[in-house]
């Protein structure tokens, strides 16, 4: 490939415009010359080429070399099936989370639900209370939506006065993005004869303790889905088998798993998980409640803590951005702690309320520096700096942390999570 002169912005970030102008986007990045010694390629006929391979499998699993692609489990001290498991964002690519790595959040473990016995009851303030089984639900046409599901408590380590030094997945991995397929809630709510405004769905799951929270009918009618499928196959048990709510852009506590009841009420039920939990205490001692929409967020997944850079040279900066308000409009990256920013390249198509992968090239000069990314969504809402977030919300909000994340790159190529302000 002919040598291309790329424009560089401050701190050697080769941003989106330069990459587009150079035609590197369509050409792919494979044209970068590799620097290597002669004859490190190996034998003409390798060992595997002389050996018959293994046979077939009914359900494929990853290569044994990919042992790092696992969820990180954080279980409650007193009850081992309560807690979370986190998606290893730092080892994943693209914008879809594989089903086996979708994060988990359980309030009393994964129930064993039999699809031939499971029923969804929709009742309360409706004209015709109905019970649905999977056979009946399977007769409705499906819709599919690619969207993120993010726990309201994701990234809550960011509230800690000292930055936690661990991998991206363990800081920000209570978020995943899948294609969810199922029946629009609007269709089912029309079946029972439910008003479209002014009411609440008390959504309950069939898990131990019957977790339940309240959802306004307006959101259900807007784009709510009763999801039965996750990336083409049936929901995984830990992600809600056989049915769950999907409410694009909203905090995951509202995407009730193992759904067995939608009780239509004239007001919110004020359950434990919309009062005691999933509310944000502010500076003045009052708390925000029903903060449903997840605000814009981004994080650089590569390079990130755990990854060691091998001396100065050309590197890729890659990461994810998402917003519950809609599409990501722009992701900016800084390699000098926010003094200057370059616009990153966004993977197309840019999807509404879904993971958006961003990339750009970076020529690292081997000196210590501070990497950051910040997202702006189509509503103009900007991911705030940590300083701004704390100034607005105080330090005790616990939920809905979406501040800009900073990685300090040391001269030896190691990367640490730091607070920039």
């Amino acid at each position, binding site marked *: 490939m002919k040598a291309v002169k790329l424009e560089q912005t401050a701190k050697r970030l080769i941003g989106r415009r330069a990459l587009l102008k150079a035609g590197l986007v369509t050409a792919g990045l494979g044209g970068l010359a590799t620097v290597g010694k002669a004859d490190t390629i190996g034998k003409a006929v390798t060992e595997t080429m002389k050996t018959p391979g293994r046979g077939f499998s009914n359900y494929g699993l990853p290569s044994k070399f990919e042992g790092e692609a696992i969820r990180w489990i954080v279980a409650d001290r*007193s009850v081992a099936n309560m807690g979370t498991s986190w998606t290893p964002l730092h080892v994943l690519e693209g914008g879809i989370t594989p089903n086996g790595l979708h994060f988990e959040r359980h309030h009393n473990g994964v129930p064993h639900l039999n699809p031939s016995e499971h029923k969804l009851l929709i009742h309360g303030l409706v004209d015709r209370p*109905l019970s649905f089984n999977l056979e009946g639900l399977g007769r409705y046409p499906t819709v599919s939506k690619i969207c993120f599901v993010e726990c309201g408590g994701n990234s809550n380590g960011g509230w800690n006065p000292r930055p936690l030094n661990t991998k991206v997945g363990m800081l920000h991995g209570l978020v995943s993005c899948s294609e969810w397929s199922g029946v629009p809630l609007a269709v089912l709510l*029309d079946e029972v004869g439910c008003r*479209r405004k002014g009411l609440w769905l008390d959504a309950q799951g069939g898990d131990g303790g*019957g977790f339940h929270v309240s959802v306004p009918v307006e959101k259900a009618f807007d784009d709510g889905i009763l999801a039965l499928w996750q990336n083409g196959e049936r929901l995984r048990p830990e992600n809600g088998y056989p049915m769950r709510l999907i409410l694009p852009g909203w905090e995951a506590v509202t995407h009730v798993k193992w759904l067995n009841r939608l009780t239509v009420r004239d007001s919110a*039920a*004020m359950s*434990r998980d919309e009062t005691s939990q999933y509310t944000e*205490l502010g500076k003045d*001692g009052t708390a925000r409640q029903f903060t449903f929409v997840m605000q814009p967020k981004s994080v650089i997944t590569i390079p990130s803590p755990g990854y060691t850079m091998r001396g100065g040279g050309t590197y890729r900066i890659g990461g994810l951005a998402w917003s519950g308000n809609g599409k990501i409009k722009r992701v900016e990256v800084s390699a000098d702690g926010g003094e200057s920013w370059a616009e990153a390249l966004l993977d197309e198509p840019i999807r509404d309320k879904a993971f958006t992968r961003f990339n750009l090239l970076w020529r690292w000069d081997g000196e210590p520096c501070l990497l950051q990314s910040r997202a702006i969504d189509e509503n103009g809402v900007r991911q705030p700096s940590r300083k701004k977030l704390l100034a607005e919300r105080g330090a005790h909000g616990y939920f809905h942390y979406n501040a800009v994340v900073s990685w300090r790159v040391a001269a030896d190529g190691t990367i640490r999570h730091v607070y920039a302000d």
Partner: protein
Amino acid sequence: MRINPIIIIPLAVLAASGVLFFADLSPTSFFGSFFGRGAKTEPPQLGTPLADPHRYDIAVTPNRGLPLGSGSVGEGKLIYAAKCAVCHGSRGQGRTAPELVGGIGTLASAMPEKTVGSYLPYATTLFDYTKRAMPPSAPFSLTDDEVYALVGFVLHLNGLVGERAVLDKDSLAAIEMPNRHGFRQVWQP
């Protein structure tokens, strides 16, 4: 506009056989015309009518659901010691499970403590959650009388009801928690 005949034929067949349903969904809805635009006819009705829907509503909310029954703070003290102290601490101070007691008036301070007493806006929430979710090893195992007793004891530990209090549906519904007005609802319809 020339209409593609390949689409027309199956629609005509379906319409003639009477199995094509239309739903009058709002045009602003994400799904638009899910079944197809047209005159409103019978909905698919693939659900089974529920004969006795009320018996499925077990939630206890600020407006409904508190069952018959009662329990005293004294009775609650015994149940708490047997079933709750191991995780929540003998005085509700928290051990492996969250603290239940204390912190009233601290929410605006530099070290806020969020507990049942200091943060929870409704006593009905405590009843609802205890009844269905506690103890985690045996969800839905407590009787309604036991739940009244436990709620009474935890509220007593928080200084919100007296040592001799007996809770039932009327007395519990009348309790106004300290943080009843401490929440601002962000979502607007």
